């Protein structure tokens, strides 16, 4: 029996992997910024402090996405 190739993928599948790896951090970032905005609206006087905390969290989340990018470069 011959094997019939119906479709073929050319290029690197790790592109799809990076797309998947960006999903989680994307959701996390949305929650983070949304919550920070919400708390700022509730209590505008602590907005400076909240912003700092938000950026610290942003750094952590961003790293998750970038680890996917590094893995994509190494692949």
């Amino acid at each position, binding site marked *: 029996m011959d094997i019939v190739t119906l479709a073929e993928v050319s290029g690197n599948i790790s592109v799809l992997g990076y797309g998947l790896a960006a999903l989680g951090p994307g959701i996390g970032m949305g929650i983070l910024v949304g919550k920070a905005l919400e708390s700022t609206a509730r209590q505008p006087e602590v907005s*400076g*402090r909240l912003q*700092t905390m938000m*950026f*610290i969290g*942003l*750094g*952590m989340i*961003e*790293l998750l996405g*970038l*680890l996917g*990018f*590094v893995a994509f*470069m190494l692949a």
Partner: protein
Amino acid sequence: MSGFQGAGMLLAAKAGPDLPAMKDFLPPQILFQGTPFAINRIILIRIVATIVLLVVMSVTASRAKLIPGRWQSAVEWLLDFVRTNVVYQVMGEERGKRFVPMMTTLFFTIFIFNLCSVIPGANMAATASITMPLVFALWIFAQYWVAACREQGFFKYLRSELAPAGVPPLLLILIAPIQLIEVLLIRPFSLTVRLFANMVAGHLLVATCLAFTQYYLVDAQNALLAGAGVLWFVGGMVFTLFEMFVAALQAYIFTILGSVYISQSYPELG
């Protein structure tokens, strides 16, 4: 999609656009080849950027007036931003005072090095090879260990990090190794990778847009494709602006996380 493919077939004879690749980040050595002091393009950018930064800041400082001009107030605003919004915000004024010069140096150096990725002629962030972010991260690493040893003593700091108060003893078997890896490896590694990968990704993004612009507008010599070239050009400009924003954001995040790590070396406020 089909339109794109059709256009692609029209041009099948032509070579594709000159897309950026990882080899851009490992340029050939141009000076002192073969010695440990070999200089390639990125290192040259670093040296030039450092000299420019030093000269501009010294000239600004030596000509400082009581009533600041436009340039001086911009620089002062940035200096004040690092001191108040980064260091004092995280550490408090009393503890943060001794780290202000270090954090200011880090912020300005990283900012200028990142900005080189959009400066014509350089077109490559000086932080886009892993060594430079690693040096910055190791500086932070050394500082928070030194601060910990000075303020709490080595073992007391280690105990407070490995066994956070209120954790049940049984869970410590899990928590302590994780915390140890966090303190020793993950902190400097994450600082390094964040800065490095951001700059590499930014360069690839901008260079891809501009490579397609060149290909569609100039190389293709096809009036139909010029529209696509204009779109790519607009994209390239937008991403260039975005890169400038990222340059500042990364400098900010690097310094603020550095301050957080250093401030965790201090004993808890009673």
